[in-house]
């Protein structure tokens, strides 16, 4: 008999149907993967099972956990069940914990709330659970606060408080999306071992097909609030009966067609670049100690080349990016673009030769400006705004696959993928030599990501552009770059032609990164 049996689960907000006839069964000790793109209803399915849907949502159907129908329980009954029989962990480890409570208290609270232990016993059990998730007492005493831990460690705390009462079902909603690949691999291992040892069932929600491929017994593919295909993982990946599954699979491993034409002329040269930040002062009058975020980095980017820069969070990628854009001064070494020095005081004419596209398509536009003004903004770098600027904006929009009409709209009228196209149009408007793409496709769904990668490849071939492609996502870097740099702790530890670095990594860190990256099974 299955532990969780969901039958015809529907959810609507007003007249809008969010979930339609969701049905699946999940057995004890099983891992159930749910994949789909944003807005497909993955998270809403989880929230519906937890009874944590927004107040005005109407839920119908059945969802039986060990014979108890979760959908028709009262709020009080649901409170007794949550954290006890069914627990959940979320995507954002940085904000998922209360910043003003110690980790010990937060884990113990699960036990105290359900009256399963008094405070002293609860703290003892909390200690055991933290040990279990890999946070030993010597380094992680109970009185630590969340801000003293890294993202991966915080996610372990979230897992500890979710499993404190040994729930029958653990729901993990994108538990590793915000983490680095090596940390992701560790957290997935931890979840896998918990399922095996504690005998609970795991419902793992993710947008990443490769993640479920490695861990799930069963997979459900969701699209527009429906499960389009569900079955044993190996079978789903082998047969891919539904066209949407095939489409997702193709988009995940998509490699855009490119025709690289690298000239042997250096466009950007970085020589021994050092960028230090001041750490917090240790005393009122003491000098703040320096922290080298970028520590002696050298490389050359040739004209027409697509250069990748990979590394985990905190390795200095973003700091290096800001220095290359001339936004921050260097404390040592130099950067030159087209033979001229780059820095905060570089002339506007040189600035217009390098443009940037950032990660967040929602935060990088002024919401009160129309698209025409947003895209035309870099013209301020030129002495005169060209008379035909309107036409140039229209052309730039058309070249990224938008239409001329879009100029008169505001940015909130566009989806994430469309916004990223507009950001690329804005970067293109001055016909720069170099575009810095700082995690430019990381926030996008796989199918949108595939389209943007195609667009970038096409633009680079057509306009003879060079890219500095910065990402933590090795798959994407592999797909679009000619050469790659691997960065760790402010230094470049390995560099070389992309294919060579990925197939035959030399540095131990590169090997570790590549080994930790989840892989899609070969179709």
């Amino acid at each position, binding site marked *: 008999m299955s532990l969780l049996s969901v039958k015809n689960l529907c959810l609507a907000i007003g007249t809008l149907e969010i979930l339609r006839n969701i049905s699946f069964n999940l057995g004890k000790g099983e891992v159930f993967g749910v994949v789909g793109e944003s807005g497909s209803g993955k998270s809403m399915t989880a929230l519906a099972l*937890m009874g*944590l849907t927004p107040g005005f949502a109407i839920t119908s159907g059945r969802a039986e956990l060990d014979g108890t129908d979760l959908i028709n329980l009262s709020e009080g009954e649901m409170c007794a069940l*949550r954290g006890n029989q069914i627990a959940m962990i979320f995507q954002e480890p940085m904000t998922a914990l*209360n*910043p003003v409570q110690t980790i010990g208290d937060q884990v113990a*609270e699960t036990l105290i709330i359900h009256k399963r232990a008094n405070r002293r016993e609860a703290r003892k059990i909390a200690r055991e659970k933290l040990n279990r998730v890999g946070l030993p007492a010597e380094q992680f005493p109970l009185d630590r*606060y969340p801000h003293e831990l890294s993202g991966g460690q915080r996610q372990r705390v*979230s897992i500890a408080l979710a499993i404190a009462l040994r729930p029958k079902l653990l729901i993990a909603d994108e538990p590793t999306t915000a983490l680095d690949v090596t940390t992701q691999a560790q957290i997935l291992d931890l979840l896998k071992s918990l399922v095996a040892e504690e005998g609970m069932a795991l419902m793992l929600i993710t947008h990443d097909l490769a993640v479920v491929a490695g861990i799930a017994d069963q997979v459900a593919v969701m699209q527009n609030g429906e499960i389009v295909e569900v079955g044993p993982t190996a079978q789903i990946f082998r047969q891919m009966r539904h066209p949407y599954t095939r489409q997702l699979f193709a988009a995940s491993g998509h490699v855009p067609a490119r025709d690289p034409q690298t000239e042997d002329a250096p466009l950007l040269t970085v020589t021994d670049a050092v960028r230090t930040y001041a750490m917090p002062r240790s005393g009122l009058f003491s000098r703040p100690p320096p922290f080298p975020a970028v520590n002696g980095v050298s490389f050359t980017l040739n004209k027409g080349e697509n250069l990748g820069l990979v590394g985990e969070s905190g390795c200095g990628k973003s700091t290096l990016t800001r220095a290359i854009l001339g936004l921050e001064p260097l404390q040592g070494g130099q950067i030159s673009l087209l033979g001229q020095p780059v820095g905060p005081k570089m002339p506007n004419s040189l600035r217009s030769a390098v443009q940037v596209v950032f990660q967040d398509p929602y935060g990088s536009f002024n919401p009160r400006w129309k698209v025409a003004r947003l895209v035309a903004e870099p013209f301020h770098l030129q002495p005169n705004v060209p008379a035909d600027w309107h036409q140039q904006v229209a052309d730039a929009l058309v070249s990224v696959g938008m239409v001329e009409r879009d100029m008169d709209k505001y940015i909130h009228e566009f989806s994430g993928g469309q916004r990223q196209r507009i950001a690329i149009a804005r970067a293109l408007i001055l016909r720069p030599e170099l575009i810095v793409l700082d995690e430019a496709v990381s926030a996008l769904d796989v199918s949108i990501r595939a389209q943007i990668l195609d667009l970038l490849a096409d633009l680079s071939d057509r306009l003879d552009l060079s890219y500095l492609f910065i990402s933590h996502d090795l798959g994407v870097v592999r797909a679009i770059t000619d050469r790659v740099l691997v960065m760790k702790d402010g230094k470049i530890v390995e560099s070389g032609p992309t294919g060579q670095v990925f197939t035959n990594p030399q540095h131990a860190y590169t090997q570790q990164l590549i080994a930790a990256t989840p892989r899609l099974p070969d179709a």
Partner: protein
Amino acid sequence: MLRFAATRLISLSLSLLAASVVIFAVIEVIPGDPASFMLGLNAEPDTVMALRDQLGLNGSILSRYLSWIGGMLSGDFGTSYTYRVPVSELILARIWISLPLAIYALLLSTLIAFPVGLIAAARRGKASDIGIMASTQLGIAVPNFWFAMLLVLVFAINLRWFSAGGFPGWDQGFWLGLKSLTLPAIALALPQASILARIMRSSLLDTLDQDYIRTARAKGLSRRQTITRHALRNAMIPVLTIIGMQFSFLLAGAIIIENVFFLPGLGRLIFQGITQRDLIVVESVVMLLVFAVISVTFLVDLAYAMADPRLRRRK
């Protein structure tokens, strides 16, 4: 935590020092000579000089600054030019009205604002929330001196529960003193409570949107438990800032209310000092107020560190 307090204390003394220099310099450059003001328009220049000597106005700037600071550190604030009594006596007589009034008003404001803000946030968008928001809007808009007059009209003149003004002195009994401060405290507290309640509400609503509230709900906490166990303490952090600012304002900014209720407080003292060119009084009272504001800021900083572990550094 101790180290945090110690560093805050050092920076507090430095701010006080900087403030004393600024206050002294401003009093130096503003026009108006106390000696000629005291002697009238027809005074002989020699007489003015002699009085200036007597008042200690003729030394070098540095020596006068040092003697002022030195005097204050030893409790000697100088002698008022117009009242001819030590400034410390003047201040002492008045601070026992202004300080209790400020604390009273702040207590009232906090006691009203917290539950009101909490109810509004917990019932967001419902009738009680809308009603509370509308009345706090009114509380901010109504000038407090007008509200004070209204209070006098209703509670002093019509109902005769309170006296219309004046202060009998604490020696007449604690409750009598407190009673005569009640109407002024209410008049002062109303706009402050309205502001504080709105800030409490929006801060709590922001907090309730946070991811860790969702985590708490997923643990099995009820809505009410998430507010009391997780949201309140986090929501307090911006509220504390406002409370600190309000206390400073209530201590020094009650001039109008003190006038409406005929209370001989610090606000009135400083106002009289300015109009009569009694610069030594002005200097000393302003310095005292600066000291009060900086001390309150220090307490708020400590309260911050207690509420938010991210501010105290692990040793």
